[in-house]
């Protein structure tokens, strides 16, 4: 029963994904179909077209195991190993350094600009604590 509900919820999410892909290819947009589908789904939730209860378990499931779904893509790096021997190794360092720079500056800046830090200094608490993924 539980599993069936999760599958039905994922099917609903899949429909939004599919609509996103259709819109993306139809209008030839540079934004991926999944992101378009997400924005549509967000709109459907805020306009009450879709009740949160209809997708809750499926969404929880997919987010809980989110890193799993990246693995087929990340393994693709294996085809490019030779590129990073010798001088190419510097490219890895550039990407890591630039990533660190973005994280620190964007993070510090937005935190500085965020109002009313007095009561919310600690990071968020409640939900999704069960999400122990990576």
């Amino acid at each position: 029963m539980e599993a069936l509900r999760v599958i039905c919820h994922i099917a609903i999410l899949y429909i939004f994904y599919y609509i996103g892909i259709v819109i993306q290819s139809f209008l030839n947009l540079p934004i991926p179909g999944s992101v378009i589908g997400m924005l549509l789904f967000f709109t459907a939730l805020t306009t009450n077209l879709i009740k949160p209860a209809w997708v809750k378990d499926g969404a929880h499931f997919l987010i809980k195991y989110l890193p799993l779904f990246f693995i087929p893509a990340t393994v693709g790096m294996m085809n490019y190993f030779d590129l990073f021997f010798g001088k190419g190794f510097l490219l890895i360092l550039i990407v890591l350094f630039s990533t660190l720079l973005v994280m620190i500056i964007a993070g510090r800046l937005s935190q500085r600009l965020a109002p009313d830090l007095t009561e919310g200094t600690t990071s968020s608490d409640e939900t999704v604590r069960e999400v122990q993924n990576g």
Partner: protein
Amino acid sequence: MDKILPILIIMGIILVYLGCRYIYMKYQSPFTLPVLLATVVIIVILLTFNVSYETFLTGGKWIDMLLGPAVVALAYPLYNQRKLLKDFYIPITIGVFTGALIGVMSGVILAKLLRFNDSILYSIAPKSVTTPVAMDISGSLGGISPLAAVFVMIAGIGGAVMSTFTFKYTGINHFIGRGVGIGCASHAIGTSKAMEYGEKEGAVSTIAMVMSAVIVSLISPLVLLLF
């Protein structure tokens, strides 16, 4: 064999992932992050048994199929936290715009300084955004799309791994700072790590990732004009 192999690969990926997840829960460290550990373990297995990436994908594509709906599912925490996003849209917008600009510029400038050729510059420019967007951007700039995807993976996994000690030593302890920082730098892989900090961080990271994808696709051609 043709029918059994993909199923074995799917089961293998799930087993490796669950194993890595278990290890991560027991020994939490940036270097045991499941997406990193599982990727390394699977690549080592494939290389050891001389299995090509193309063969791996006969099973892998079925798991990859769920990535789309999983990205759609990110709208759910976004919806739960909608009030918060409304309250903080100014710091989020300014933070993401700055982050997107720094991400594109620093990658391009450093690669240029080290005398990498133009097709590398075009491939490294969109590394902070999610794979399909990055591949499209680099393709339209004249870069190498698969190489862009590799840089995206390094930025994603690298950022997720580095976030813990970065936040610790730079005093980024607010969910806005954490969400914007990790979403801007490490797109969806970073967002999966942000979900671990909490739902608020995850929601902010999702917004940051989406905004950053749009901004980077607009500014990349402009930044590259400068170089």
